[in-house]
């Protein structure tokens, strides 16, 4: 199959799908014997991306795959298509989401501990209904509280490929000089983590690569280092 046709097929499928397609999904468009190698698909995607330069849309890779999207700088005009204003989210919702995003997997109790207030069930439910957050297991402590993590849909929605692309968490200022004891208190992260690692997370086949990686990465995020993310992350998993 010639490269031109492959490119057109990919382009057409991405537009027709109206949602991100990963490489595996793109491969599935071709009959077995005509399916181009991954390299060629990637090359085609790069070309498609290049073709979008200077146009009203772009090819973007998010967590679930590639999608065409209308450029952000056109939002002012494009949003006039809809009379409804995009929703605003409450601070409680955003703070809860932030905690889940940066600290996943964690329980509702963990969230409440940081926020200092009870987390309403409504918020958790809304986040789950939006498919931004899901239960990935249960912590092995009395009551078996559910452990929450973000979904690929969350990443897609916020236009990023993986959790590392979240804005870095601000750093905690050192209080150590005030008191040596405090150092312990401040490295609270690690304290939390050890707690977590003792709690086996119930295996959940849906637990995607990204959430597992994301978990490891959140400490790195504290250090603000951007680890490279790979295509494999996307090609590895099937989206629903």
């Amino acid at each position, binding site marked *: 199959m010639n490269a031109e046709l492959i490119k057109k097929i990919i382009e*057409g499928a991405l*537009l*027709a*799908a*109206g*949602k991100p397609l990963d490489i595996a999904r793109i491969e599935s468009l071709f009959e077995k014997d005509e399916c181009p190698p991954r390299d060629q698909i990637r090359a085609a995607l790069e070309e498609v991306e290049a073709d979008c330069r200077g146009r009203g*849309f772009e090819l*973007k890779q998010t967590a679930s795959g590639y*999608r*065409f*999207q*209308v*450029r*952000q700088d056109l*939002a002012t005009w*494009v*949003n006039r298509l809809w009379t409804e204003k*995009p929703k605003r*989210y409450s*601070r*409680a919702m*955003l*703070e809860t*989401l*932030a*905690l889940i*995003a*940066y600290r996943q997997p964690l329980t509702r109790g963990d969230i409440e501990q*940081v*926020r*200092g*207030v*009870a987390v309403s069930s409504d918020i958790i439910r809304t986040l789950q209904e939006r498919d931004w957050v899901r239960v990935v297991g249960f912590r092995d402590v009395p009551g078996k509280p559910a452990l929450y993590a973000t979904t690929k849909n969350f990443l*897609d*929605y*916020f*236009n*990023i490929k993986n959790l590392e692309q*979240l*804005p870095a*968490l*601000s750093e*905690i*200022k050192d*209080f150590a000089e*005030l*008191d040596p*004891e*405090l150092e312990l*208190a*401040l490295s*609270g992260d690690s304290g939390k983590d050890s707690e977590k690692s003792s709690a086996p997370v119930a295996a959940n086949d849906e637990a995607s690569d990204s959430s597992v990686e994301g978990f490891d990465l959140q400490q790195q995020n504290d250090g603000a280092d951007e680890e490279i993310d790979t295509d494999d992350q996307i090609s590895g998993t099937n989206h629903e």
Partner: protein
Amino acid sequence: MSIQATSVEENNPAQPSNTAGGKVHPAQEEMPFAMVQGKELTVVPKDLYIPPDALEVFLEAFEGPLDLLLYLIRRQNLDILEINVAEITSQYMGYIGLMESIQLELAAEYLVMAAMLAEIKSRMLLPRQVVDEEDEDDPRAELIRRLQEYERFKKAADDIDEMPRLGRDIHQATAHAPERNQEVQHPTVDMREVLTALADVLRRAEMFESHQVEMEKLSTRERMTKVLDILQGEQFVPFVSLFKLSEGKLGVVVTFLAIMELIKESLVEIVQSESFGPIHVKARTS
């Protein structure tokens, strides 16, 4: 009580009067912290008397005691690390007292925080005993840790809110898909699934005991289907044509039983125009 309330407001010199509200939460700059009787309240009222409504809304503007504390600290342009616990405590207590005085339903967390602050304050006031290295921790440490931690995620929440968002800042591009030729894909079914389903439904219907025998006559039932097939047309079919001698005696018996069953269930009509004449069979309706 009133003295405390005053102290709540007295150290607000750093901020011009109209900013307090606007900057209550850096996250939501444009938001006044309260609306009272349709009026935007951008400043924590300076007078002693805060209308109960306003206070309620004021409280609602905060995401909890940590948020309120952060506000109190930031309002003085203080760094969390430098907080004067005594000062903060008295301000905090001022608000709590005010809220309680108007019987505002106060979340328990606010009271817990009040207790914690009071404890820290009292420990700070105690003369420092140099007894045990390990025992000598700054009582503020835990509070500061929590405040910092909370502030981080408050900031992270703002950052997330700022991120380009599908449907607000960016939009999924779609084009009309090519015409589809409807090609139905059937799921695969394992016979065991069918049987499990049957077992379930029968168990539910509690039919095993009473209907077992009847239901096992599958060959008859299958033959009934076949006979009905032959009788698809509107015409009468000779009775004898329903039998195939090649099937042997048993085949004949099965067919006969099937026809009897069909008659019993009023599915076929059977006629004989004269004694010993040919018998004809026809489907009852179609």
